[in-house]
Structure formats: structure tokens, C-alpha cells
């Protein structure tokens, strides 16, 4: 602490302890998070942590960070970032590179798919503390009733859904629900179709590949699910996560693409589909592999923080196995640490975890580029146009490609 004696800032109290400001999203189990923060303080007597809580809307958090980070404000040290902001903040120089603070031993146990979202130009700018992955929910009872095996590929899913719809003869039953509203969730879903067909949005060298055959084919398949196969109802263009879950939970859908949070709700005592639901990694097309979209939150350090060493200690604390275990048990979100998924005590409390592992092992971040949010803004209306039948997928993706090329030329 000697280095700090000369500059008695407001962030140091009389005892010479450093006060870290930890800005994070409002969490439904906030009290437990505070317990973890107190535990960190007990372990690190020289450091106090003040939590600063942002609204739960991701848009508002982004706005808060952009305004404060762009103004070079150093009032907070540790920040909680949606995974897609990491490359943006890193490119802007707003978050510090973490390589000096973290050993391979700290990172090695974390899910590699989640960590990939934190690397830009070979340096690390964040660490995952909550992970999220796209998963496929299915009605085990309905599949068993007609002797179907859970599907591996999209064409299999289509065949099963179509057959069940035909035999059940219930007009209110939908085959396959996913997030089709014009918003970020649509991009998350579409990426799973696109990458499951060997396509992507950007090539390794950064060039846009939105109108490539593999990409267009995948989007065509999404549109065909609605307009050709009738397996996905047209109301998918209004669905976000929660509205899809409501329909699935009321027993009116065979398959649903969603995130793991839905599992507990679908199996709650009052849920009509409790214990009739199975969970799978998202499908893919023949000859390719499943590529569930990564979600979740990552911790980073404000580049203007004057307490980076102490901030790094807080980051190391939150990715430690025992703390990650508490994050699952107390906060109810999926931890990034792989060891937690093998812990017998955890498995007893969360028997669904082994079913999530295949998805987590394949989880893929959205393109890790500072341009991602802009590309997503271009993609959302074009994907929406393709699935609403306003433009052909070919035409829509061609337009998205042109706009993205223009964008990439701006820098």
C-alpha cells in the first residue's frame, strides 16, 4: 500500500484500505452476490468493495458504460459486461488488458468457448463469470409417444415435428419455436442455423460472408420452416425468449430454442409440461457440427482504474471454483468454471447440468469484433424481412452483406 500513501484520494479510507467500485447489473439474487463480495473483503483485508448497481436492462447498462468510459471516468474499477461488448470496449481502449494479472492456471478451467469472446488481437480483456448457451428443448413425452429419437440435425427435427403435428391433429400445437422478433435474440438464433451449416458472418480475416451459400441456405431453411413446412407458426416474428417459453410451457409446442434459464420454469410444480421436457444441444445440418450461441456476462477492469491490481484480485476471486459453485447454487446462473459441472454436490442439486455440457462444450461466441453491434443492427431487420417473407433470404442477405461491407470500410 506504500505507493498509495502519497495520494490520499477519496477512494482510500483512514486505514489505508483501497475501495474498489464494482459496477454490475441488478441481479434477482442481489443479496447473495453481496455475500460473495463480503467474503472477498474478508479474504483481502486491504480491499473494500462498493457495489454500484445498474438497471437490469442490458441497453441501459451499455449506455451507462459508453457514456462513462468514453468520458474516461475512473470512478468504477470492475465492470460487468454483456459478452458482446467486450471486443467493442477493448477496441476503444476502455478496458484494460488482463494478461499481466491472470495466469494460465486461472483460465484453463474455464469453458474455452466463453473465453474466446474475451480475446481481441491476442490479448485478454475479460473473464466470464456467468455463461449462457443456446439449447434445444423438446417434449420427451411426445417424441416417445411416436417412437422418435431426439434429433441431432435440423432436417431430422423438421421431419419429427411435421410427423407429430400430423398425427396429433391439434391445430394449436406448434412444431418448433425460436426467437424471431427483430432484436438481438434473432441474431443469436440465426447464427446457430448459419454456423450449423458451416457458414458465418465474418471470415477469419474479417471479411463479411453474409451472402455466402452456406449462410443464405441456412436463412432459407428458417424461412421455409414457417412458409413451406408450416412447422414454425408465423407468430414467431413476435417471439422473444419469454413469449416462446409461455407457449412451450402451456404444452403447445414440440421443440423450442431457448436458453438454460427456462429449464427451472418449465419444470416448476405448476408448469403443465413439468418433467416432460428434454434438453439437447442445438441442431446442425448434415456434415457440420452444432454451434450454440454464447451468452452471459464477463468481468473487466476499467482502463482508467487506479486500482488495477486490486481489481484483478476481485476477478480472480469470481472465477475461482468454490466461488463459481456459489454462483450456481445461490445466484442460479451457469458458472464458467468446468470443475463445478463435475462436483457431486452440485450435480445432486442440478441434475440437468450433464445435459447442458454438450452445448457448453460447443458454445461459440458471436463474431468477436468491435463491429459486432453494428453488424447485428444491420442483420436484425434483414433477417426479420427474410423470415417475415418481405424479401427472399437471398435478397435480404445480399443487402446485409452490402451494408456490412460499407461499414467495414469506415475505419
Amino acid at each position: 500500500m506504500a505507493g498509495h500513501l502519497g495520494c490520499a484520494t477519496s477512494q482510500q479510507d483512514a486505514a489505508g484500505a483501497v475501495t474498489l467500485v464494482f459496477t454490475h447489473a441488478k441481479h434477482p439474487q442481489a443479496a447473495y452476490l453481496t455475500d460473495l463480495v463480503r467474503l472477498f473483503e474478508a479474504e483481502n483485508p486491504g480491499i473494500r468493495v462498493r457495489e454500484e448497481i445498474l438497471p437490469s436492462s442490458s441497453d441501459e447498462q451499455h449506455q451507462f458504460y459508453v457514456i462513462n468510459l468514453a468520458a474516461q471516468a475512473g470512478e468504477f474499477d470492475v465492470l460487468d459486461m454483456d459478452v458482446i461488448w467486450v471486443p467493442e470496449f477493448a477496441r476503444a481502449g476502455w478496458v484494460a488488458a488482463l494478461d499481466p494479472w491472470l495466469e494460465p492456471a486461472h483460465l484453463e478451467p474455464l469453458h474455452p468457448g466463453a473465453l474466446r469472446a474475451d480475446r481481441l488481437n491476442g490479448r485478454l480483456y475479460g473473464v466470464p463469470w456467468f455463461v449462457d448457451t443456446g439449447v434445444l428443448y423438446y417434449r420427451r413425452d411426445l417424441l416417445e409417444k411416436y417412437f422418435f429419437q431426439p434429433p441431432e440435425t435440423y432436417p431430422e427435427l423438421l421431419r419429427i415435428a411435421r410427423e407429430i403435428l400430423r398425427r396429433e391433429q391439434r391445430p394449436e400445437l406448434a412444431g418448433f419455436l425460436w426467437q424471431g422478433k427483430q432484436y438481438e435474440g434473432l441474431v443469436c438464433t440465426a447464427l446457430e442455423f448459419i454456423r450449423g451449416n458451416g457458414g458465418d458472418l465474418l471470415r477469419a480475416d474479417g471479411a463479411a460472408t453474409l451472402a455466402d451459400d452456406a449462410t443464405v441456405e441456412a436463412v432459407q431453411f428458417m424461412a421455409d420452416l414457417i412458409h413451406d413446412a408450416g412447422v414454425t407458426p408465423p407468430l414467431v416474428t413476435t417471439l422473444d425468449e419469454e413469449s416462446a417459453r409461455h407457449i412451450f410451457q402451456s404444452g403447445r409446442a414440440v421443440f423450442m430454442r431457448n436458453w438454460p434459464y427456462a429449464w427451472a420454469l418449465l419444470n416448476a410444480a405448476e408448469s403443465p409440461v413439468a418433467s416432460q421436457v428434454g434438453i439437447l444441444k442445438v441442431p446442425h445440418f448434415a456434415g457440420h457440427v452444432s454451434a450454440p450461441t454464447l451468452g452471459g456476462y464477463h468481468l473487466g477492469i476499467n482502463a482508467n482504474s487506479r486500482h488495477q491490481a486490486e481489481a484483478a484480485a476481485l476477478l480472480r476471486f469470481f472465477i475461482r471454483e468454490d466461488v463459481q459453485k456459489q454462483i450456481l447454487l445461490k445466484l442460479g446462473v451457469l458458472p464458467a468454471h468446468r470443475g463445478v459441472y463435475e462436483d457431486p454436490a452440485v450435480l445432486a442439486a442440478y441434475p440437468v447440468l450433464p445435459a447442458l455440457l454438450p452445448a457448453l462444450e460447443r458454445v461459440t461466441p458471436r463474431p468477436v469484433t468491435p463491429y459486432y453491434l453494428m453488424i447485428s443492427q444491420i442483420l436484425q431487420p434483414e433477417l426479420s424481412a427474410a423470415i417475415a417473407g418481405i424479401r427472399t433470404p437471398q435478397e435480404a442477405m445480399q443487402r446485409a452483406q452490402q451494408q456490412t461491407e460499407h461499414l467495414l470500410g469506415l475505419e
Partner: protein
Amino acid sequence: MREAVRELFRRYALLAPALLLVAVAALLPVLFTIWLSFRRQMPIFGISQWTGLDNYGFLLEDPRFWNAVANTGYFVAVSVALETALGLGFALLLNRKFPGRGLARALVLIPWAVPSVAAARFWEWILNADFGLLNYLLGVRIHWLGDPFWAMHAAILADVWKSTPFVVILLLAGLQLMPEELYRAARIDGAGPWQMFRHVTLPLLKPFLLLALIFRTMDAARVFDLLFVLTGGGPANQTETMVVYSYKLLYRTLQFGYGSAVAVATFAFILALSLGYLRMLNRAWQLRRE
């Protein structure tokens, strides 16, 4: 003479704090936005340079911008027309004497008192294709918010519900100021109810109608919260208005320069509309005075 100058000086000195407040609170941000609109300003890439009219040149060719202009124009025209017509009807009704009028007047105001975001949230439920009240009442299965045609009209419906009360209050105030003797005179002249409305009520109400139109048009032209919550601009940007587009540019993708250019264009659009109305309003007040 000297006394007059001193008096003038005193007047402006007393006005100064108010003027300063207006300048700081209203004028500075506007000027700053205009200044930004001539720059390429992308903090993520550390880009900050003067580009003159480049942003406006791009704006002229940006189909997404023109789509937003068309959506805004359609939203304003249809919602304001409906709100004015309905508002006039309700105001005339509430101006009559009937039992429970006080209660009815209070009830009509409720939608106006509901915050937009809250209103948008429950309209989202009403309009839900799967279990929404509207489909249940109509016995149909329309995907109100997901269908490219219906989405804009569903949003207009929600706006009409929310904003008609505002027109009602303004027009009701106007109706209460109507001199009773004009109606008596018209009745003596043998005018029927329609003629009285057409030749007495309507001309006298004109300034109030125009006032309602100005406020509603300006408000509707910068519609944001309702659409942002209901559809986020979708499907396929069919409900993306100018303000929603500039919000996305500014806050989602951090293109401060171009986003400001879109904001300035929106400002010019609204200013042009209001200046047109103000001229009409001035003429109407003059007529009324005569």
C-alpha cells in the same frame, strides 16, 4: 431618454437568468448535436474528425433513413387524424350535461396519465397473437406485432388509445369557452344541430383544434418509447421511425456523427411541420378576434 435606456437594461438583466437557463438546457445540446452531425465520431475506433456534409450526403442515399421517414410520416398522419376525430367526438359528448359526467371526464383522462412504457407493455399483452385480448374479442388470430402490415397499425391503435384524451382535454376547454348567446342566436335563426356545429362550434373551436394538432403532431413525429417497447422497429424495420433509428445509431452502435445527422434531420422535419401549423394557428386566432 437615459431613464428609458436604464429601464430597458433592467428588463434584460431580469430576463437574463431565465434566458441563460434556456440556453444551457435547450440550446447548447441542440448546437452540440448539430456540430456532431458534421463529424465522423466513432469512439470505439478512436475516430473523431470533421467531415463536413458527408453524413448528410450519406443520409440522402440511406434507404433505412428514408424508410424511417416514410414510417414516421405514416404514423403521424394516421394517428393524429384519428386522435383529432375521436377527440372531437368525445369532447362534444363530454360537453353535454348528463348524469355521471364528472366521472366520465375523469375516466377519459386515465390513458393519458399512464406512462408510455407501461402502456406499451400492456398493449403488448393485449396484442399478443397467442393469448391476447384483442384476438380473443375479435375471434381472429392476427399476428398484430409480427405481421409487416399490422405491426404499424397496432402501434397506431395503442397511440390513439393513449393520446386521444389529450385532444379531448384541449377541445373540452375550448368548448367551455363558447359563448352561449351565439347558440341561442343560431337557434332563433332556425339552425339545426348540424348547422350549429358546422357554422358556430367548428369555426370557434378551430384555434383549439390547431393547438391540439400541433402538440400531437410534434409528439407523434418523435414517437419512440411506444414503438421501441412494442416492436423495437420490427418486423423488417416496418415500424422503425426516425427517432428509433437515430437511437439505434447513437446508443446501440455508437455512431455519434451519423446518428446526430439523423437526429438533426428529425429535428428539421418536426420544426418544418410546426412552423406550418403555427402560421395556420396565427391566422385562426386573427379570424377569431375579428
